[in-house]
């Protein structure tokens, strides 16, 4: 039985050539279903971050268009929130202000935005760190701040650009587990860029594999892993999980020089 879920993000024939002449993406067409966590996976330099930034409206594509909920994207919008690879936190602002920053930019009054920010801080497990500054936090905690900031603006779509790549392995696993818990009861659409096969399979139901530069869609894989009421370790031992990891590796292997 196939269930067709409405596509919230549609990418149509996107091509991207930088001013330097580097062609990052060629003829990328795909859709992302509403309410799902999809990952974009590929070798480094395949344009996956570029693709995410085009969807986020931060980069204008050379050709093609992106539609979000049917509307053409020509810049960032309130329905999309971004989580950055390097966290992009204000070093001179404490956690509370950083988390509330998206709302601050939208002109939400201080009390109101702080109330919302405190709720997001609690959700990502950083209660008690509201007054800390980014330099006082570990890499993993900084990225939780980045995630809380994206949650605070209550966007329908969260775009995550290799959010765990500068975080050590243990922290990364814990963070992945927390992320799944956090998203389980919400109707968020998450687009997640990563170069880690395990991370992609562990987190998502839908994996878009990109080929090396110029990036184009090599394959879309939808492993059916039963996640409900199972511990992270059970998921990591699931046969479908292991098969999917292996299947992706067989494809990506060819791209690695």
């Amino acid at each position: 039985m196939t269930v067709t879920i409405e596509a919230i993000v549609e990418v149509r024939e996107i091509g991207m050539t930088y001013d330097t002449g580097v062609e990052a993406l060629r003829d990328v067409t795909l859709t992302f279903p509403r309410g799902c966590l999809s990952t974009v996976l590929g070798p480094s330099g395949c344009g996956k971050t570029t693709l995410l930034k085009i969807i986020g409206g931060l980069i204008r594509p050379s050709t093609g268009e992106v539609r979000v909920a049917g509307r053409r994207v020509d810049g960032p919008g309130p329905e999309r929130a971004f989580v950055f690879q390097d966290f992009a936190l204000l070093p001179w602002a404490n956690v509370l202000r950083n988390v509330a920053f998206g709302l601050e930019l939208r002109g939400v009054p201080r009390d109101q935005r702080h109330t919302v920010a405190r709720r997001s801080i609690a959700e990502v497990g950083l209660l008690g760190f509201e007054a800390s500054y980014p330099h006082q936090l570990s890499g993993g905690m900084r990225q939780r701040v980045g995630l809380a900031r994206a949650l605070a603006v209550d966007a329908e779509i969260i775009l995550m650009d290799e959010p765990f790549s500068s975080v050590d392995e243990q922290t990364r696993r814990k963070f992945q587990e927390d992320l799944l818990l956090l998203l389980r009861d919400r109707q968020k659409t998450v687009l997640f860029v990563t170069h880690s096969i395990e991370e992609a399979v562990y987190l998502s139901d839908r994996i878009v594999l990109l080929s090396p530069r110029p990036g184009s869609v090599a394959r879309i894989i939808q492993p059916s892993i039963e996640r409900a009421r199972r511990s992270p370790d059970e998921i990591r031992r699931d046969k479908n999980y292991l098969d999917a990891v292996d299947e992706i590796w067989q494809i990506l292997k060819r791209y690695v020089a």
Partner: protein
Amino acid sequence: MLFFGIWEGAGRWPLSPTFPPFSRTAWALGRMTADGTLARAYVSTLEPLVIGIAVSAVVGVGFGIAMGLSRAVEWLSLPLFVIAQAAPMAAIIPLITYIYGIGLTAKTLAVVVLAVPVITMNSYKGIRNTNPSLIEMCRAFLGTRRQQVLKIVLPHAGGLIFAGLRLGVAMGFIGVVIAELLITPTGIGDLITYHSSVADYPEMFAAVASIVALGALTIRGLQSVERRVFPPEIRGS
């Protein structure tokens, strides 16, 4: 203490007939402070210095920020400031005298031409070095260009701008002393030239030592303010 001891020894030895021992210099300093000579000299020295620094701060920070934010302003004025920073600006002080005479205007201008380049260049670099990822973050969360400048670029540049002001004050001290020695002897420059011409070497050295100490203390003071307001770990650049 050791420094003062060596100074005392060198003066008594004597190193040179014009070099007074520390004790006599200190005595001269005490006497000049007591009879108000020093205070009067500083009033006239500090006037062009303070006005000059104030003008330089406004002009320098203003230009630096404008150059950092606008490609057109950068294209027009960056070469000028690069040259101004590299050139020995003291050499144009006689030119200033030629145009503006020997009064307060000329001395203030001497401070300004020395202080402005470093203040401008620091502010410019502070603005230009803004972390591009913070700008991108601001755009992603729907910040306007105005919010980008006010909430990201300026706070990010704050530390470097303040450091530029501190260096500008140091240059201002140099400027005002050169002006007082080169244009017309007034204030502390007058004390130095007058006492050296009548061979009152302890008084001359007292005047030199006092301006050196004042300059050094001011810069140290600014440095500690800087560390408190822009601690390196929360500073953007």
